[in-house]
């Protein structure tokens, strides 16, 4: 009779369906299909889709590329560590290094312009958490992830590391300016 006893009908798959259940299953299924369509549709019509362009890399190779990029476009340095502030031209490839415990360099971008942002880590997993916009992307060592970004508001943004990476994890913050 109850859920803790064997069902009285031997063939449980022939047990009749109540109308409440039948109705609810149909409604729930339709809702699941809407959510499925939404996810696919956003790829077609939406403006926020995470790129899947990825390359295998090594810390040495990635550092060399980032170094060349910084040398080319540095406009000034900031903070006591003399972190370079890099202002690349719109449409270009830009590089951000995540490592224990900093993001390097500081980026200066133009509002409404599109850039190809390369992300990789030199050591552990890190997190790219752009605040206050609240965009969050995983950074995995050995992989170079190319994300196309288009800033839509001017101001000062911070990149907070939101993947635990050791004792000074809480000091790992980078910066992006949008002009």
């Amino acid at each position, binding site marked *: 009779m109850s859920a803790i006893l064997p*069902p009285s009908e031997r063939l449980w798959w022939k047990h009749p369906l*109540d109308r409440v259940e039948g109705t609810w299953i149909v409604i729930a299924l339709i809702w699941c299909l809407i959510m499925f369509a939404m*996810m696919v549709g956003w790829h077609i019509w939406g403006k926020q889709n995470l790129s899947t362009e990825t390359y295998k890399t090594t810390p040495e190779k990635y550092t060399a590329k980032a170094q060349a990029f910084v040398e080319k476009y540095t406009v000034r340095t900031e903070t006591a560590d003399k972190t370079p502030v890099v202002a690349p031209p719109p449409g270009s490839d830009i590089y951000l290094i995540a490592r224990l415990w900093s993001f390097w360099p500081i980026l200066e971008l133009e509002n409404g312009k599109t850039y190809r942002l390369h992300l990789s880590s030199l050591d552990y997993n890190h997190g790219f958490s752009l605040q206050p916009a*609240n965009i*969050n992307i995983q950074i995995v060592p050995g992989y170079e992830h190319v994300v*196309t970004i288009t800033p839509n508001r001017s101001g000062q943004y911070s990149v907070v590391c939101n993947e635990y990476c050791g004792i*000074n994890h*809480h000091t790992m913050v980078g910066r992006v300016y949008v002009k």
Partner: protein
Amino acid sequence: MSVTTTYRTDPRSGLQFESHAERLITANAVAAVVFLLIGGLLAIGVVLTRWPAVHWLEADTFYQVLTAHGIDMLIFWIIFFEVAVLYFCSSTLLRCRLATPRIAWLAFALMVIGAITNNVAVYQGGSSVMMTSYVPMMAAPSFYFGLILFAVGALIACFVFFGTLVVARRDRTYQGSVPLVTFGAVTAAIIAVFTIASGAIILIPTWLMSIGVVEKVDPLAYRMIWWAFGHSSQQINVAAHISIWYAVAAIAFGAKPMSERVSRGAFLLYILFLQLASAHHLLADPGLSTGWKVVNTSYFMYFAVLASMIHGLTIPGAMEVAQRKKGFNKGLFEWLRKAPWGNPVFSGVFISIVGFGFLGGISGVMMGTEQLNMIIHNTIYVPGHFHATVVVGTTLSFMALTYFLIPVLFKREMIAPGLAKIQPYLFGLSMYFFCLVMMGAGTLGVSRRHWDMAFNGSPLAYEWPGAAYLMMGLVGIAGVSAIVGGAIYIYVTVGSLLWGKRLESGQKSATFTPIPPTAPSAAVQSYGSIGFAAPGTFVLAMVFLVAFVLYYFINWKYLSQVWGLS
């Protein structure tokens, strides 16, 4: 078999306990509560450090405590209890002897040794790698070795469970199909085998890497296979606690499933699709194609979501039908008003069902949506979600079941019944609020697993909005109140075992009494309205759907305002 055994029929519930199974259920449940106690003590450190105004522990201690809290709660407390549930659902519900009790004790010993080894590794320092232990960050070899031992033990326990099903079949202790609750336990055990195998596939090479035998484990491959273990282990919980919900509906109301076909079909969907939900942990990762993400987290995962939505209707629905049959048939909600709200077995489960659906379920779908994941990934929204599923859903259900087991299994009268009566409300509702404010803080971007939201010592520190600080302060307050609720549970449970009045244990016999066949039930129902047997539950389900739809589109609205990404 040379092992002799006896069967005890419990005079309070009529359940029949085989002596080996009874001792093993007791041992596993007690070990579970010990780890809940340890995890609960660790929770004090986590909560009081993330409460910005208190900020209690130093960074290294905080990460150590957070690592241990995660593993003790998510793995040890829950899986020990689940092994007890598996033995209960096989040997006790099917009234048969437990297969190979000596091997079951071996499994228990491996699990205890593994859990202690892992805990010791964390407390020694040098293994503060979080529960996820992403490579290339390395912990001490004993950290992985402890987990592997525990997993092997748990795997053996699953096979003891399967063996017990065979024993019951062969000894003909029941006729026809197994009860629905046992069917749910089979689902949990099948998912457990998949989960533990995934854990072994990734933890063994990582352990070999930690002792220098293997040179490198790919960080992305690690993430993918680890999550097949890490998330699927939470799916064992879902299958287990939903089985408990059905069991409690049967125990508290004598409720029978509305339709065996629907409920069992939903469990089958879990077996086929639930583990694929683990793919949503990789939505913000490089290297995986859009097609892979969409197929796994949408097409497949929504079948599991569908199954959960079905259980979410059929369990309260079964309660409603049973109540209406008893005459609580007025209006839409008399059945609910007249429910035994003072019985912690029922109130715990009902608070668990509502919280799991509204807070855990809806937020889980948000995180599992490819694009929405970008505004949630690794923020404190994530622990907000899984405290709603694992703590409100699983832990609270296990607590409710314990209140039933104290007289029935442990043969003790519950001490402090007044405290037990308020415990599910205090614990459950504090956790509701805790999860809500965590998700609020996560929506503002606050990171999970982060010692200091003021970024003390960073040259480029970011200033969170005041609302984020307020939310994290509320997380602290709600967390402390939930910990008090947890402490009451431990006090009532352990206290009853130690000082509770001994109850009569009931008739013992050397042979089992088979379950008598049940008479077919009448299909026609004479209660309910507009052809609905459970109209009240249907209204509640529609409220749930409206909340779900609104919140879903609110999140798309948030997403549409962030930077363009392609």
